[in-house]
């Protein structure tokens, strides 16, 4: 893939600017998390520190819910890590575009689902010298928005959700819209279009049937298998044709 530069813009600022659409999804969910954590008897500071250190949406909700229900702490940790296990495939997928830099071990803390999706699409288009700055800007903006949203939710979540209930429902649509924009260029190839369409449908159906956490790894595995099958059929057909 050809590299493009950011035409004079600071990579940090470009990363932050391109991560802005993520905020529509992050802030309302973080506000919900802050509110739920406080309702589960965590203090404002504890809720904020959970967002600072764990920084993984679904598993944070599970963490506070299990602690509040009195579950054994070892089980809380195991379940939190199980939910986050999908993150294991993100780093290797980005590795070809990550130039050597001693900050990566710390920057990987910011590798959430959404930052992965954004970086997977954008890093290959950037010049190698711009990638660390771009990633840092995008990841830091997302992290700070998550922390700020948690604090806001813990302090004033109830008032906010009562005053603007529609806003909390509308803003999270930024996430599917962003994922769609990141996926759209892949749909010019038939095997990709079929595999990604099927993956989306499977994930949607699993979520509707009450499996939101298993939906991502399961649907992705199905989609990857389908793509490989379509590709091998196509290359097999060409070989025999």
């Amino acid at each position: 893939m050809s590299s493009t530069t950011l035409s004079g813009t600071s990579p940090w600022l470009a990363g932050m600017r391109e991560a802005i659409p993520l905020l529509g999804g992050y802030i309302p969910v973080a506000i919900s998390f802050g509110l739920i954590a406080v309702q589960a008897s965590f203090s404002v500071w504890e809720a904020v520190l959970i967002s600072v250190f764990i920084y993984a949406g679904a598993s944070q909700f599970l963490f506070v819910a299990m602690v509040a229900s009195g579950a054994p702490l070892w089980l809380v940790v195991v379940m939190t890590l199980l939910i986050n296990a999908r993150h294991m495939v993100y780093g290797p997928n980005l590795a070809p575009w990550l130039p050597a830099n001693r900050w990566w071990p710390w920057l990987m803390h910011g590798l959430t689902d959404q930052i992965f999706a954004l970086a997977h699409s954008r890093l290959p288009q950037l010049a190698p010298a711009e990638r660390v700055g771009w990633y840092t800007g995008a990841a830091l903006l997302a992290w700070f928005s998550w922390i700020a949203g948690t604090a806001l939710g813990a302090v004033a979540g109830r008032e906010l959700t009562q005053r603007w209930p529609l806003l909390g429902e509308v803003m999270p649509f930024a996430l599917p819209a962003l994922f769609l924009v990141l996926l759209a260029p892949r749909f010019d190839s038939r095997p990709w279009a079929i595999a990604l369409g099927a993956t989306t449908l499977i994930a949607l159906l699993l979520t509707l049937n009450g499996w939101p956490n298993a939906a991502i790894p399961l649907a992705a595995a199905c989609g990857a298998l389908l793509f490989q099958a379509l590709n091998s059929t196509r290359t097999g057909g060409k070989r025999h044709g």
Partner: protein
Amino acid sequence: MDSALWIAMLAAALGTLLMRLLPMLWMQRHLARRQDNSLEAMPAWLSVLGPSMIAAMFGVSLVPASLTLSSWLATACGVLLTLYVWHRTRSLGWPVFAGVAMYGAVKLLAGLAG
């Protein structure tokens, strides 16, 4: 939080960081050993799994918080407008902005009509 809960929180945080970090370091070493920093040097299944994960996240995030007809209608309209604006602009921000605005407009109209 008592000390046991702090330890549990830090264990979950450290485990999550290591799951994000170690596979990346492993792949960087793998690529360095092969002296080939390209997609071809990656295992094929892994390069397919990346876009599949994004598609799966898309599918999960499509499900609205309230499963009502107006939410599904807003989702469909939002998706269509996002695609249209992306097709016209090939940019990142405007399609997302347009999609969210459409989603909000449909929800607002449905609320007024209901």
